[in-house]
């Protein structure tokens, strides 16, 4: 009887208003759309600002290695090279470190230890960039110059990567600083992804008699690999745009060198360095074009990385970052 009663009451009630739902949908839609508009506006403004340089130098701007503010001859290749190489070094160092840390924290660490380690790693993300830069100049660089680089040169000096004079400030130093700065983001996203791997996966693997290493490798890492790649992309995004700390340790020399011990320069650094004192139209326009190139480099690397992930296939475990 009670059921019938409640049914008749429900039938007599007015249908619930859908206005709230519509408003909610429109507001969230507007927010999402405004981000797209923002990207287009930024791109358009950069293009407008760089008009002069785009017309004067054309495609040569991205292939030329000459950056001469006095003669107003501008080429961005050393900066593009420096941005890509320093970010690559950072990923080579940070990815194994972060993923291993995330595995330890989700699979192996005793629960008591987890929270303190997580807190410390997240604290790394809160340190301002300029502090890393100062630490780089006064602690990391002298140590690299006196102890680390000479040893590298002694054992790996047959590779062109580790030849030439050692100044301390270098592409490698920049890569190391960026690595430290992107470890927290890759670690915490990776940790979320590994936590989202269903326990059934692990239990099934254990049930087949797998060892702990095998469980982690087969059931966890392989299941989560797409998500982990997503974490790496987030780190890469940060690495490409990192400015202050990099400027302080990279040596700011617009040159393309094979050696990682040689100084370099990045797109973000040259803007930060030269924009404030640039007075002529062409010079400013060239710096705008540098920004445009950085914008493009970031978008292209992200698209390539997304393509890489979708080419990998496998179950979609990348929910945590999507």
């Amino acid at each position, binding site marked *: 009887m009670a059921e019938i009663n409640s049914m008749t009451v429900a039938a007599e009630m007015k249908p619930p208003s859908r206005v709230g739902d519509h408003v909610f949908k429109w507001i969230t839609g507007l927010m999402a759309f405004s981000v797209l508009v923002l990207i287009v506006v930024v791109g358009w403004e950069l293009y407008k600002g760089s008009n002069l340089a785009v017309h004067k130098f054309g495609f040569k701007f991205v292939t030329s290695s000459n950056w001469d503010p006095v003669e107003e001859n501008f080429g961005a290749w050393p900066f593009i090279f420096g941005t890509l190489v320093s970010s690559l070094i950072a990923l080579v160092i940070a990815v194994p470190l972060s993923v291993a840390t995330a595995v330890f924290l989700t699979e192996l660490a005793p629960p008591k230890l987890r929270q303190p380690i997580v807190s410390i790693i997240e604290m790394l993300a809160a340190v301002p960039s300029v502090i890393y830069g100062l630490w780089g100049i006064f602690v990391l660089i002298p140590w690299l110059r006196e102890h680390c680089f000479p040893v590298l040169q002694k054992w790996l000096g047959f590779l062109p990567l580790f030849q030439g004079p050692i100044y301390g400030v270098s592409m490698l130093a920049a890569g190391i600083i960026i690595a430290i700065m992107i470890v927290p983001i890759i670690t915490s996203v990776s940790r979320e992804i590994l936590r989202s791997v269903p326990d059934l996966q692990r239990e099934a693997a254990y049930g087949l008699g797998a060892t702990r290493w095998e469980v982690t490798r087969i059931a966890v890492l392989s299941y989560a690999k797409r998500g982990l790649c997503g974490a790496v992309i987030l780190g890469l995004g940060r690495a490409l745009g990192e400015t202050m700390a990099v400027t302080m340790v990279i040596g700011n020399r617009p040159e393309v060198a094979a050696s990682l011990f040689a100084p370099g320069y990045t797109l973000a650094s040259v803007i930060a360095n030269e*924009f404030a004192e640039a007075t002529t139209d062409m010079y400013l326009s060239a710096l705008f074009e540098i920004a445009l190139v950085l914008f493009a480099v970031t978008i292209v690397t992200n698209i390539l990385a997304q393509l890489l992930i979708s080419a990998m296939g496998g179950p979609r475990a990348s929910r945590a970052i999507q």
Partner: protein
Amino acid sequence: MNTIQLIRRAALVALVAGSVAGASAQMLINGAGATFPYPIYSKWFDSYAKIDPSVRFNYQSIGSGGGQKQILAQTVDFGASDGPMSDENLDKASGKILHIPTVAGAVVVTYNISGSPKLKLDGATLVDIFRGKITKWNDAKIAALNEGVTLPNQNIIVVHRSDGSGTSYIFTSYLSAVSYEWQQEVGANTSVKWPSGLGGKGNEGVAGLVKQTPGAIGYVELIYAKQNKLAYADLKNADGKFVSASIESVTAALATARIPDDFRFKMVNAPGPVAYPISGATWLLIYQQQKDPAKGKKLVEFLKWALTDGEKLASEIGYAPLPEAIQQRVLNRVAEIKY
């Protein structure tokens, strides 16, 4: 309390606050530009607040390039720059822009060799070092200038500013003035295409790299070198005398520098036995015809004070004041500002 009441109250509070602020409003004069003179300018604005409390200055040290852009766009009442404006930029202005030199500073050559001996250098040697032609500290050219100093057989590592700066502008102006090759190959600017070396950001970046790198040589502002007790070289001036950088030797250079009527001058390698060769002035940029008569009047009053009483504060914090002869010429120019 319902929402409407809350909004009404908030509006009332805002209205009251606004009218109070309006009642005690001082005139606000906005300026922007060079970072190098920022300490002396803020000291001036501070001291001047006691002399004329009805006017307040807001100065943003966004760099000389920014100062020139802002004065051209007329978003500020005055600009400030470590280098004079180019003809090209002056042509873009809607009115005549006056250059008002305020103080001068020096750039010193600092180095890191064991024992920090006092070195003597001249223009030609400095050019060769920064071009990467002299690569060892015990090179014959350096040794010839420094008899009695044991120089190490060590590689020279050149350090320059990576950010665009008035310091680089003064330093490269000097190298251009003493060397035709430098002028042709590199030139003078706030940023140049350096033939060799590493770039450090800011005075602290250059000083940091020099301090950390054995065999390094770099250039920083005199004030910065003094505050941080860095070793710096005596330089051979245009008269062939070795001069140490100091406020007196910079003022001496100002006194003997050739200064044209529009005050757009370089004072590097100035003649005279006591003039320090690597120095430069800094300028305020002001429209000759002021748009707002009240603001224009206050600005001129301030300038007159700054160029007389204000100049006396300069040497306290390490800037070289204008010598008397130039001070008078600049004051005459300030008197031409119309409002």
